[in-house]
């Protein structure tokens, strides 16, 4: 029998896909868009994440765990699907590689500023390629290892206890932020993205995986972690300072001062490579999954190489951090649409199939 994802691995995998470059600037974005006690907005956003996950759960139930591509191909001719697949494939690998490029640009703020970023990107893509080739089960296991490597960083947040002041939090809720809260929602929501790839995990899960429960738990975990980081940041920096900090997490790391070692932010930031790596790998893996539908006869190794190569070439385009950020934001807007739109479309399709009796056959 084919190996299936375990519930624990699936939870960690989805969580690690969610946590990535967006989380580095998350406290600042919350401060800019939501103002005082912006960290509370995390819970509002989480409600939408859970709603979206519930929609995906409906797809899972209606399709009885069958691959979403099978569902699509049952009703829609391949010739129509091909351009959609092509777009999805290119889009997912692009979003993965843009996240990687942004990570590298941020890394170069603190280390190796004069090295060409595409050298780092090359190594990053190579690692991603090696991991994708190992298949989803191994990616899940590796992400668990990566999770263990990075999770302890959260305990460093107790280091800020002395400089944390409740008065800095203020009793005001969502005051002094950007009046356009809808934009704020769309700018902060991408920090949660990654859970929508659960759609592609259907064939790799069985009843024991409790895939949708894993998706809910991982989103819950991301919510708690984000709320905690943002809460500490608001009490440590205060609203005004937080609004002008590009990457508050980097300054928090730089503040850690151990008796024998200091300036460990380079090291700590290096650890966050692992979270970004899983984000990139999972998005590229999704692209490969779509690619397999377009070119079923092509070897997976060749296909994933071509897809990663495409991502690498695309990542040449943003030449600066701000450009990479802008691209990633635009891509994230589309991904939000996809995260809600794709499962809704699938539900409609599944209902049509059911009414026609196609599904039973």
């Amino acid at each position, binding site marked *: 029998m084919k190996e299936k994802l375990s519930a624990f691995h699936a939870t960690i995998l989805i969580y690690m896909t969610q946590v990535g470059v967006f989380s580095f600037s998350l406290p600042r974005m919350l401060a800019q868009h939501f103002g*005082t006690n912006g960290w509370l907005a995390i819970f509002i956003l989480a409600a939408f994440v859970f709603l979206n996950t519930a929609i995906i759960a409906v797809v899972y139930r209606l399709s009885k765990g069958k691959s979403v591509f099978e569902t699509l191909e049952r009703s829609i001719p391949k010739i129509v699907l091909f351009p959609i697949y092509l777009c999805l494939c290119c889009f997912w690998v692009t979003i993965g590689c843009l996240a990687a490029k942004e990570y590298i640009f941020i890394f170069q*703020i*603190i280390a*190796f*500023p*004069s*090295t060409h970023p595409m*050298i*780092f990107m*090359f*190594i990053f893509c*190579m*690692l991603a390629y*090696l991991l994708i080739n190992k298949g989803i089960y191994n990616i899940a296991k590796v992400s668990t290892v990566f999770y263990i490597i990075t999770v302890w960083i959260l305990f460093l947040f107790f280091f800020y206890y002395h*400089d944390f002041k409740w*008065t*800095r939090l*203020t*009793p*005001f809720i969502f*005051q*002094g932020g950007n009046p356009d809260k809808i934009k704020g929602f769309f700018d902060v929501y991408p920090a949660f993205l990654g859970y929508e790839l659960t759609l592609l995990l259907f064939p790799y899960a069985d009843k024991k995986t409790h895939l949708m429960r894993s998706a809910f738990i991982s989103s819950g975990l991301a919510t708690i972690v984000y709320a905690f980081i943002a809460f500490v940041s608001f009490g440590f*920096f*205060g*609203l*005004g*300072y937080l*609004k*002008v900090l590009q990457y508050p997490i*980097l*300054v928090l790391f*730089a*503040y850690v*001062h151990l008796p024998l070692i*200091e*300036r460990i932010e380079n090291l700590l930031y290096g650890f966050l490579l692992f979270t970004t790596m899983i984000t990139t790998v999972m998005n590229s893996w999704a692209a490969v999954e779509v690619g397999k539908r377009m070119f079923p006869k092509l070897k997976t190794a060749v296909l994933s190489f071509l897809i990663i190569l495409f991502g690498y070439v695309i990542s040449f385009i943003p030449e600066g951090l701000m450009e990479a950020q802008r691209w990633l934001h635009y891509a994230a807007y589309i991904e939000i649409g996809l995260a809600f739109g794709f499962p809704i479309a699938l539900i409609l399709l599944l209902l049509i199939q059911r009414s026609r009796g196609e599904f039973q056959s």
Partner: protein
Amino acid sequence: MNKRWPGLLLTLAMLTGCDDQHILERTGFCHTISYDLLPDHNFKIGLSVPKADPNSKTDREVLQAIAHSSKDSQPKLVRQTSLLLVNGQLRNLLFSLPLAEGGLLDQMDTLSRDPSIPPKVKITLADGDAYDLLKKNYKEHPRTDRYIYTLLEKEAAYQTVPEATLYEFIRDYYDDGIDPIAPIIKDAGDTITVSGVGLFRGDRYITRIKPDDLHILALLRHNLRHADMTIHLASEGQHKELITFNYLKSDRKIDVLRDKSGKPVVMIHIKASGSVLEYIGKLKLHSDADRNTLLQQAARHLESRAEEMIKFMQDNKVDSIGIGAYVRNSMSYASWKKLDWYEEYAHLTVQCRVDLNIINSGQTL
């Protein structure tokens, strides 16, 4: 084939080290930077770089450049040394008072933008020329940059002089309920001494607290953990009465009440306790009645001095103890935004209540 991958990857990873090299012996780790404002509005920027070379006659290089900005001075400073200057171990930033009077925001913006500068770097004000202070060698003391740093570090550890770091300064600047502070040092001939604490309104230096009042400022600004404090109850002619608390712990609480007209009234409660290892006066520490009288006297004395200090700050419109944050949190956001805080602050009623307690009074009765 699979076995070759790790080797290839490792080689590639190692190769990245061939670029962006920083060789320790050729690197100068800047320790302290001084900033002075010149009459033509340019800056005189000084740099103290410790030297690790055992063959060198001096233990540091002190460089100086006239420039339009801190980064503008960098190439001029670099031209004077064989070392590659880096900021990763920067410990102290010394600003002259005239420069601080004009505002430090531009400097702070550059400093906080640079990721190589640690957020824990100290912000210090210099009475007189900052560069001259940094350049001078003090025979009986360690290297001047290190001397200043350890002096301030020790003072901060014993909580007599509040610590001011880049992070704290910028954080308090951006917070609308508190103003930044920074210690002031001066050349006292053979030594360097702390000559007060500078009080800022926004990023501009306004006035200072004298060294004798620093413990009052410390009590008002934050909770103390192990401070030493001498309270002079009387010092007229030959009649002296003083009490010294060691290992003093204090808890500060600020309440905002409203008077009949709805105006805020600020109550500052300070609870402090410590060991008394010195008392000069007529009362007996082992007598309960005497001890209570003494504590009451000392508490009233601290209250009046604290209120004097707050009045001084109100007159200068500097909110160095962060009363604004408590007033802000006691009202609605819209009312706070409408309020001209510094005007309101200048006329605010602030009262202090001090509770003192003696934990022990040493080995003798």
